[in-house]
């Protein structure tokens, strides 16, 4: 029974510690090339199952206008902001905001990492965008007048924290006590390995006394 429980716990740990499974929809909006509004659509990420974590990402490709505006922001060392609107099965639309340096986004050929942090009860607490600092000198991939965005999406789970593990500690103490009751642990080291700390000083003492009391030197024969 105990083993069964253990296996079960192991399995459970390997699984994602989610209480409920559900779908998730993240609407992405960014702040470039929007005519009059502050934010306009960049794409959409949808998950059928949070537990499975596989997402379908559909995003627009940047046009020349997008790139120009991004370059303008990059010249000022400005930030490219993305607003994400998250809808799930049991919560209404929640808004998150995240920004990356426009310069780095361009240098990384429009590739970013999107992570969505999810509580065990299935609620999203943050959607963050990050870019890497690997500045690749290759120019942007030009593809039929469009620049596609490379996004990697990860679902990150807020794990359950460890609790002070008293049970296994008590078991460990019990094992040690049992071992002590059975008799001392067999020390299978060699005699020299065990008692070198006693032998060596004696040896040194003998040596030193040998050095300090040298044999009276034989009289030099003239």
């Amino acid at each position, binding site marked *: 029974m105990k083993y069964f429980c253990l296996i079960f716990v192991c399995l459970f740990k390997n699984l994602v510690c989610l209480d409920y499974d559900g779908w998730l929809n993240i609407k992405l909006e960014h702040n470039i090339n929007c005519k009059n509004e502050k934010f306009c659509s960049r794409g959409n990420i949808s998950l059928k199952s949070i537990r499975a974590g596989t997402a379908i990402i559909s995003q627009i490709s940047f046009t020349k206008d997008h790139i120009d505006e991004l370059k303008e922001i990059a010249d000022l060392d400005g930030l490219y902001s993305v607003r994400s609107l998250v809808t799930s099965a049991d919560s209404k639309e929640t808004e998150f905001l995240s920004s990356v340096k426009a310069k780095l986004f361009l240098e990384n050929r429009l590739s970013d990492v999107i992570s969505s942090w999810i509580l065990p009860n299935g609620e999203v607490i*943050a959607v963050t965008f990050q*870019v890497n600092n690997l500045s690749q000198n290759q120019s942007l991939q030009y593809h039929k007048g469009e620049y596609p965005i490379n996004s990697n999406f990860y679902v*990150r789970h807020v794990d359950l924290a*460890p609790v002070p*593990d008293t049970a296994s500690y008590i078991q460990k103490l019990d094992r040690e006590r049992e071992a002590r009751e059975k008799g001392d642990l067999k020390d299978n080291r060699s005699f020299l390995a065990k008692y070198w700390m006693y032998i060596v000083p004696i040896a040194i003492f003998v040596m030193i006394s040998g050095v300090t009391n040298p044999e009276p030197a034989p009289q030099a024969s003239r």
Partner: protein
Amino acid sequence: MGVLSRTLKPNFLGLLKFLNNMNWFIVFFSLINLSVCIYEDQIGKFDWRQSYVGRIKFSQFDTVSTAKKIIVATEENVLAALNLKTGQVVWRHVFETASAGNIQLLHVGEKVTTVTGSNPYLVRGWNSATGVLMWEWSLTLQNAQQTDYSEWLVQNNMLVHMLPVFGSHLEVTMYNLLTGSNRGATSRLSAAWSNDGCILTGPYYTCVSGDMGSQLLLSLDVTANAIQFISKPLSNYINLQQSIGGNLRPLDSSVVPGFIVDDKKVILIKEGSFVMVGKELVDETASVAVIDGGSEQIMLQTWADDVKGFQLSAYSISSNSEVTEIHCSDPTMNIPEPEFKAVMCTRKAKEQFACRILVNGADDAVHLMQQGGRVLWTREEALANVVTAEFVDLPVSDTDAAIESEFDQKEGSVWSAFSRRLHSQYTQLQNLIRNLQGQSTQEDSTNALVRDYFNLHKIIVLITEAGKIFGMDNLSGEILWRRYEPGLDAEAVVLYTRRSARHPPHDAYVTVVGKHEETGNGYIISLNPITGNLVGEQTIKLDVRILQCALLHTPDSEKLHALVLLDEDETVQVFPISATSLVENLYMYVAEKESGKVQGYALKYNGASVEAQRTWSVRLGGAGGAQVAAVASRSRLERVRSPGRALADRSVLYKYSNPNLVLFVLDTPDPTHKEVVTAVVLDGASGALLGASQHRRARALPLAVHADNCFAYLYRSEKHRRLEIATMELYEGQERWLEPGAAFSSFASDRAPAVERQAYILPAGATAAAVTITERSLTDRHVLLGLTTGAVIEMPWAYLEARRGLTGGDEALLPYTPELPLHAEATLNYNRTIERVMGVFTAPAGLESTSLVLVTGLDLFYTRVAPSKTFDLLKDDFDYYLITIVLAALIVATYSTKYFASRKMLKLAWK
């Protein structure tokens, strides 16, 4: 020997080397202070404790016992006896903080009697000389809803409880003071005229009742067997046309029952009738006391005049004349809103009056005065409620400053530099000669506040809840300056050191950012921490609420770090305005305490002004919302000592050393697990989440600490009903992400660090937490925990390490134990209990081994800690003479043996 075998490699050569070095070890051990705790003769050498009682609520002179004392009961639920001569605490009892500890009544007779709590009440008697509890009984009232209006009175060894039911009757119950036995039932006195403006003075319950213009002044003796009722029209005493009428105020200290009507007329009740005192109140806010000065009754008044300062006047009621001996008018004395707490006057034959007057100010300071206003002692009770504290460096001495300024001047020819050098050396020589002649004493007294060699001497700036700011010498605990800011709401106050005293021509500069008491808008006070005077921007009252504030990391030309404020309407203000153009790469975060929503702002100078752009926003509690219990961010004094740590297999585990990390601990209600605690580590600049964990069925404590890549926070596990401490450590892994020396950027990284987590049981209640800080962070890091037992314990980080549970035989890690050991010798304050520890503040000293610690609470405690022992300091009782003699003897012996050896050789050669 066992220790040796572990520390040394078991080979022969190593051991030989060790034995060779053995004599050096003897010298070495004699230099290092290996003791963990202090010796008995070191008590009070590096530390001090100051005991406080809090703002005084009731006080009475204890005239019965031989040692003269004042018995005080305070707002902090403390009962204490103060020595009349020195003002020191003779004995003290600290009751519960909640309403169960509220002191309702203090009566000093032969024994001290207190009534504490709020239904059930506890009636206790104390020995006034020793403070020992003599008796105790509890009292529970039947109808619980009206008990807030309860009034208590001690008369003829009976405890009188009076409960008014407004507009109906008074319920009066008498109890035997010692036993609590009830004499008969509760008597109901009909009083249809009672209202919530009524007051109880002595045995009389007094009201103003009736229609406007024809009010009656009514008084009823609540203890009398036969009903004694006094009723007079109010118009007999005051002119009802000129005032609204009917405002009663009790006398602050009185031997006869009496009250003040409309802050103007004083009426006493004598022999069953109202007697009006011939003198009106001088000032509306004046505090009034009526005392028995030998044969006559004297009315004392005190008030603070804007121009004339502290005012004290006395008036003899029977002879209708001023008593000039007691009178005082002192413009230098600054007691805001003085109030009599206890007054006692005696008159020996026809000699002068001998008075002892206990006056309490609005700044919570309590003064004991003589007649004529001479202050015998002052207690700064505001220090019982310290909100925040900061250690400030002292300036260097004049001679050191001269040397520094000499090297500062870069321009000029070689000859001018040479002449400067000669001049400064001439002044140094002069100083030296003066020192040798013993004339340096007067210079020392004026310039005592200079930095010492190890920078152990500092000034602690303390901000208290009462709005009083103190400057305190950290070595002696002496208050150097104090400043009362009545407008400062110290609830959420931030203290910044904007310029340290290291830039000689400029003074040190600290700024207090808080809220204004009345409006809640921003209120900024700039001070010189050495003198306590206002400097620079002085005080600024903003007309908007502050959302967040920060210091600019780059100083301006005057070495002053600008203060950047983010307003409620997301505009940015920079003080001084000249530093506006320096704002660059500044990021701020704002957390909403009630919802768990955290937002980040990027601040940038656009050529004309600084504007804030909202860059990130997360909801850490989910959509449902959560309470932010604790936030821990990096201390500005913190440095990173090493990029990683060595593992058992000689590889390096690199730390994730992001300086922008912030830990949020949130309390979230949960439908299935009752309550959960979520801890989130995020990057304060980019808003990226780096680690998060959740505890089920737990409740967070507002205690969290962060240093380098380590986090610790406390929570109460509701499931196991115990306190637990969780730790988190962030690591990059075995490979370094960035090149050594490369600057870290929060924005240029998409990798997630590995999060190590662990939790431990803390077998005590904790109320404060802090980490030690040292100059270069080379020494170990200890977590200081203030416990409910009044101890402050030092917990090495090695015990809290998140990697402690790992298997794999890493010898640098301790084996996992679920419960943290609380060794008695790890208690910083040995047997000096600190009541109600509220905060622990740490600061680095100039010595790398040492960190300065201030513990606040009801008491103040200062000490210094050496987490890795004092490796850079000779021990306290180091024997300089012995080592000098030994060295000299060794040198003499060496040369003499050399001489003798050469003679011997010569003799041998002749043989």
